[in-house]
């Protein structure tokens, strides 16, 4: 780490360092590009986990959270800021990390920071004629009254770029799709988009030429809402992000707050939370499997997946009270102890699910048509997966070991034996099979957890009003779609100063375009299903 510091100092003499649990480097905006390039190319920080826009009051800025997959998950935090609030401009890093492309558009959308040399600067979630930038602290909440006028799609596809050239900064704009292109709108209402995602697809016959995703149809401003909520209230919004891994998202926020408070969570609660996480993972993968089969036209498989998922929902309902949003974890542990039937039910579920998995393989995995559809399409290489930040089962199918449960164990994951499920080819079939393998592995984990669950308290004592000490807190967990991150910046109040959720789904959608172009339109649907994104996770 010391030589990294030295090198950064030689590139940017004004850089400041802060060594906590994580090396934090603050560089002036002018030298950001040089430092980023150095970190990416020479120090192999190849995974940009998150890019967080910030409004520090007097200045606007960005936090980059970088990991090195080659060097044993070494992590670094890079900060930069600009004090120009009228026309904030920073250099882009989207050519260094592909995932930055959408992240930077998000920062532009919410903070108004323009990124120089970004290939297509336009709003990501909000409509093009939105007034102001909502996540800035000086945003006027009444500046955008409800309007019923539609903005034309052409207007929204006018891309402006800000390029650095010899004469200085040059503004230019162009239209994303040409006049003669055959464009099909898939979504926002469409049987195959798994939520309100709007894909603009340019076709050549049946072949996909270009894809442009439009987000924001169900954006709820959860990050903005969190700033006005107390920490226990925030938890309820977590279930509504990626609703299929609600308990895991909630777990992430609980862990983050508990870490900040240095709260010791009872072991029983940790075990129960882990069981819930794994059950949710199985439920989510079953739905993902079913939807993927349905997208290939096999509706019976979808019904089978839903049928078995119901069993898990019943377990949740009995203990937590909710089915999809079970509202079970709270800061310090669990809201109530598990139902007396809980362990019995989980024990019964394990052999049942094993039997059903065999049936799934007979019905679908070994079906020659299904194999033919999934084979040889939608390849994502390991390098691409890292560059686009494709985590979770989709990333592991490309051979990238990114399982947060193994890399940064939390709750009871360090007390049980399990293997991250990996494949190397990175095709559609691998993404499909990794999910079913993970269900099997989760069942193995559940067996150990159910046997090892200790007696004792289910919740630690917390203060009536929870105030986090001043500082920045990160936590990431492995949810059903990948690396879900929580960032909380606190000023010591009872509500956070800024909250950012790292959505694994947004990076999944960004990877859709490079792996689908050149394939058939029927495969677009299926490759999308194999990535298994959930839209509310993107539209936070």
């Amino acid at each position: 780490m010391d030589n990294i510091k030295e090198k950064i100092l030689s590139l940017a003499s004004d850089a400041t360092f802060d060594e906590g649990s994580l090396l934090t480097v603050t560089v002036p905006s002018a030298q950001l590009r040089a430092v980023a390039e150095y970190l990416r190319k020479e120090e192999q920080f190849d995974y940009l986990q998150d890019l967080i826009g910030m409004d520090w009051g007097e200045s606007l800025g960005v936090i980059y959270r970088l990991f090195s997959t080659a060097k044993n998950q070494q992590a670094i935090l890079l900060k930069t800021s600009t004090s120009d609030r009228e026309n904030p401009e920073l250099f882009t890093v989207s050519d260094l990390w592909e995932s930055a492309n959408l992240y930077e558009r998000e920062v532009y959308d919410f903070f108004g920071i323009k990124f120089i040399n970004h290939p297509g600067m336009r709003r990501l979630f909000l409509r093009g004629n939105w007034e102001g930038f909502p996540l800035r602290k000086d945003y006027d909440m009444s500046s955008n009254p409800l309007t019923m006028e539609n903005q034309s799609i052409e207007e929204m596809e006018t891309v402006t770029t800000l390029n650095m050239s010899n004469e200085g900064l040059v503004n230019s704009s162009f239209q994303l799709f040409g006049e003669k292109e055959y464009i099909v709108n898939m979504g926002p209402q469409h049987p195959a988009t798994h939520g309100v995602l709007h894909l603009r697809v340019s076709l050549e016959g049946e072949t996909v030429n270009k894809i442009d995703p439009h987000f924001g149809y169900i954006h709820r401003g959860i990050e903005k809402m969190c700033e006005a909520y107390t920490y226990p209230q925030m938890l309820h919004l977590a279930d509504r992000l990626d609703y299929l891994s609600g308990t895991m998202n909630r777990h992430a926020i609980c862990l983050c707050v508990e870490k900040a408070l240095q709260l010791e969570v009872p072991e029983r609660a940790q075990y129960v939370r882990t069981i819930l996480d794994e059950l949710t993972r199985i439920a989510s993968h079953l739905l993902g499997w079913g939807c993927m089969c349905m997208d290939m036209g096999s509706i019976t498989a979808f019904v089978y997946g839903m049928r078995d998922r119901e069993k898990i929902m019943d377990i949740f309902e009995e203990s937590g009270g909710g089915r999809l949003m079970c509202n079970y974890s709270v800061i310090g542990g669990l809201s109530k102890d598990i139902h007396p039937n809980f362990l019995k039910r989980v024990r019964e579920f394990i052999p049942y699910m094993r039997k059903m998995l065999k049936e799934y393989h007979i019905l679908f995995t070994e079906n020659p048509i299904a194999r033919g559809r999934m084979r040889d399409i939608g390849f994502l290489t390991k390098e691409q997966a890292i560059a686009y930040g494709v985590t979770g089962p989709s990333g592991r199918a490309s051979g990238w070991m990114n399982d947060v449960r193994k890399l940064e164990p939390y709750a009871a994951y360090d007390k049980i034996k399990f293997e991250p499920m990996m494949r190397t080819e990175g095709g559609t079939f691998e993404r499909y099979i990794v999910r079913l393998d993970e269900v099997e592995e989760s069942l193995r984990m559940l067996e150990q957890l159910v046997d090892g669950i200790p007696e004792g308290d289910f919740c630690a004592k917390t203060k009536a009003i929870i105030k986090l000490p001043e500082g920045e807190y990160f936590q990431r967990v492995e949810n059903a779609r990948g690396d879900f991150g929580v960032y909380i910046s606190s000023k010591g109040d009872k509500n956070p100063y800024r909250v950012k959720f790292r959505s694994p789904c947004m990076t999944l959608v960004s990877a859709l375009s490079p792996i689908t172009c050149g394939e058939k339109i029927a495969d677009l649907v299926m490759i999308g299903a194999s990535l298994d994104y959930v839209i509310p996770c993107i539209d936070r």
Partner: protein
Amino acid sequence: MFDFKVVTSWIDDLLRVQAGIPEFWTLAIEFVLVGVAILAAYAVLALVLIYVERKVCAFFQCRIGPNRVGKWGWLQTVADMIKILLKEIIHINKSDKFLFLVAPFFVIMGSILAFAAIPFGKGLHAIDFNIGIFYLLAVSSLGIIGILLAGWSSNNKYTLIGAMRSGAQLVSYELSAALALLTVVALSGSMQLSVIVEKQATVWNVFHGFAAIPACIAFVIYLIAGHAETNRGPFDLPEAESELTAGYHTEYSGITFGFYYLAEYMNMFIVAAIATTVFLGGWMPLHIPGWEAFNHVMDYIPSVVWFFGKAAMCVFFALWVRWTFPRLRIDQLLKFEWKILMPISLVNLLLMAFCIILF
């Protein structure tokens, strides 16, 4: 075995001799009667098939299926039909209105015309062309025009892709279907459906000595190709709901959509009926040479029961396939036809010719 000629000639006699109606008017009345009977049978069969499909599919998927309207939900499809008749036909702006409205008629006409030429039982045969097979192939191709027109006139990108897909698919699979039927025409020596059925009085074509081998292959090919022609999964690409919402009929509503819906189910039945007639002996009972007593017992089962029993088996098979397999992709679909089914059909036809000459 009961011959339906008794009924038809009684009606003919009633009109001609008892009532003394002149030749021309007798024929006119008979035509109307036959037309009404066929249309009624068509509609009722379609309703039954839709109900059966929903029930069978439900059992495949561990569900109960329709169970609210009537006992076991048997009135559900009737209620659905009434609903579809009452629904508004939505007109699409900037579409070709004439072609848009004409398209469903092509589809339903093709299917009714094919339906009318099927021998349902002994003497229960509306029209017996001497080129029956040829006629069936010809009229069942009419549907393609309807589908292409629907896709084109809707002025919608999904429907256009759906229509183009179905054009490629139907034209390709018709070749295999025709070649498979031709195999049996070679065996029977006639294109007339009644002759083909009569020839199977002692033994069905699929059990016909050495010729059974090519006949069985042709039967399987016909089932696959016929299934593909009905646009049902795994060959339902023209209306692949996961990418094209509803394919060529996305923009249709009310009874115009109802026509496509009816035609789809009836085409499934027609394919089953042709397969029955040509390969499984039509309305002929199961006879095993040498087993006189058994053959005699089989003769007591009415011919209509035999026909609908065999057709129901083929329909169930089609449902089973549809609710099990995922959908093919367009390139795989065409590859399957042109590189696998077509060559096999051609070789099979040759094999049949050898069988006929040698045995």
